[in-house]
């Protein structure tokens, strides 16, 4: 084969591979829309399931997922941001720092079912929270921490060092410098990481399996100690546990879950782009 031919072959192969990455995403989305759009209606989105879940809507599951996502944010955000600030601004190169970093890397590698079992042991049983929104949020919160910490740390590190030096030289304390010069500029990056972490959490089934998710509850949750239905688990249930479940409802549920996570990712992208365009350094 001549040099030109190998060159042609290489670029064709590489382009094809890149396109192949794109294909599953499109296929999943298109197929879900095609199969599931028929199920989507006002009633589907706002009513509880009826008649052994074979009729009615999925509102308790949608609400449950939204509540869990918020709970996850409340748990994960303070710890993750504080840890990121510590790692980026305070940590020296010592054993403590290395231990923390290793812990984060390992947290990121733990399978989600293990998080679920950990949540069951630690929050549901040992802490006595029972199967509850609190236990589920804590479990999901811990699971999202590694990704939020690393994106937040990256965002903090991307704030130019000179801003810190100038701020300190004008008599600001280290904390004032972090609060007024570092965090405002890092915040969009932190939020982006947060949303991406949350969209991951919103779609997880295993961590909520033993900690919060209800097979079916007729009423909406009223406190953080209540169980709740949630979309991923509901989907699992109606796809495997309910005989005679109409396919349309299954696809509709999957579509709603996908739209929620896609919307979050989209928001993250929009925030990032908007801020990048606006800042002038």
């Amino acid at each position, binding site marked *: 084969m001549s040099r030109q031919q190998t060159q042609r072959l290489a670029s064709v192969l590489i382009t094809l591979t890149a396109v192949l990455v794109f294909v599953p995403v499109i296929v999943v989305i298109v197929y879900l829309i095609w199969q599931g759009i028929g199920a989507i209606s006002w009633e589907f989105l706002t009513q509880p399931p009826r008649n052994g879940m074979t009729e009615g809507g999925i509102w308790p599951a949608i609400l449950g997922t939204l509540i869990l996502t918020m709970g996850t944010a409340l748990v994960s955000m303070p710890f993750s941001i504080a840890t990121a600030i510590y790692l980026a601004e305070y940590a020296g190169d010592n054993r403590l720092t290395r231990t923390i970093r290793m812990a984060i890397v390992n947290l990121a590698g733990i399978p989600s079912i293990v998080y679920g079992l950990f949540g069951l042991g630690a929050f549901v049983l040992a802490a006595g929270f029972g199967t509850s929104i609190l236990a589920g949020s804590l479990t999901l919160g811990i699971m999202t921490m590694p990704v939020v910490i690393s994106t937040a740390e990256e965002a903090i590190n991307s704030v130019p060092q000179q801003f810190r030096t100038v701020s300190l*030289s004008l*008599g600001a304390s280290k904390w004032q410098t972090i609060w007024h010069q570092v965090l405002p500029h890092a915040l969009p990056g932190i939020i982006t990481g947060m949303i991406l972490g949350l969209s991951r959490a919103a779609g997880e089934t295993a961590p909520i399996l033993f900690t919060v998710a209800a097979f079916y509850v007729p009423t909406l949750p009223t406190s953080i100690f209540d169980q709740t239905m949630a979309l991923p688990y509901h989907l699992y249930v109606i796809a495997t546990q309910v005989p005679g479940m109409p396919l349309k409802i299954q696809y509709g549920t999957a579509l709603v879950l996908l739209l929620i996570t896609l919307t979050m990712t989209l928001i993250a992208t929009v925030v990032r782009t908007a801020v990048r365009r606006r800042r002038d350094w």
Partner: protein
Amino acid sequence: MQPKISLQNVFYTYADETEALRNVSLDVLPNQVFVLFGPSRSGKSTLLRLLNRLSDLTEGARFQGTVLVDGRNIFDRSVDVFDLRRRVSMVFAVPTPLPGSIRDNLTYGLKMAGQRNASLLETRVHRSLEQAGLWDEVKDRLDSSAMALSGGQKQRLCLARSLALEPEVILLDNPTSGLDPISTSVVEETLRELTDQYTIIMVPHSVQQAARIADRAGFLLNGELVEVNDTESIFLHPLDKRTEDYITGRFG
């Protein structure tokens, strides 16, 4: 007269064992322009950063000796380092406005010190810009981004930002780097006028600038303070052969 700033047997070594300052002793009198000149990497910036303890930010460096401001050891435990940095204010070689408006930049230091009085802040904004010779150019756009200013304007903004704190000592690390000759002479003129109120310690852009602007000058070479004298003596009749060689351009 009590020196405004006094260094006694100062040694400073970076983490990589570079000896930046070697046994430097130096007195700077109040209300003078003291110019510190010498080839690059001779320790000038290190010395400046030591005077308001920005050197604290450099990890792993070793320091030995005494630095006095108004006769008081600035490394003493009881010294409030944030207050010190407001009294001894640094203007960096590369003008770095903080993101935000011109006004934000000028009031930042005061606000961080807890100053909330709006009329005082306004007065300081106005006066510091006047002093830095920037008022006429920016008075109509104080709330627009400081990042949009030209290089020379940024440099004067950074000077004004220090002046807004009404410091006692201003440290200037090559404040006219990257400025055209006209802007340079504006800044030099400004500095001359400021000595009524301030003590200025400056690393100059060139030997010529040093000679133009200094009351007294010191020649640093490889971390060693070779010679300190009043401007006329040091530039016209240097006592040390190395000073003479540097001034006449035989090296450096």
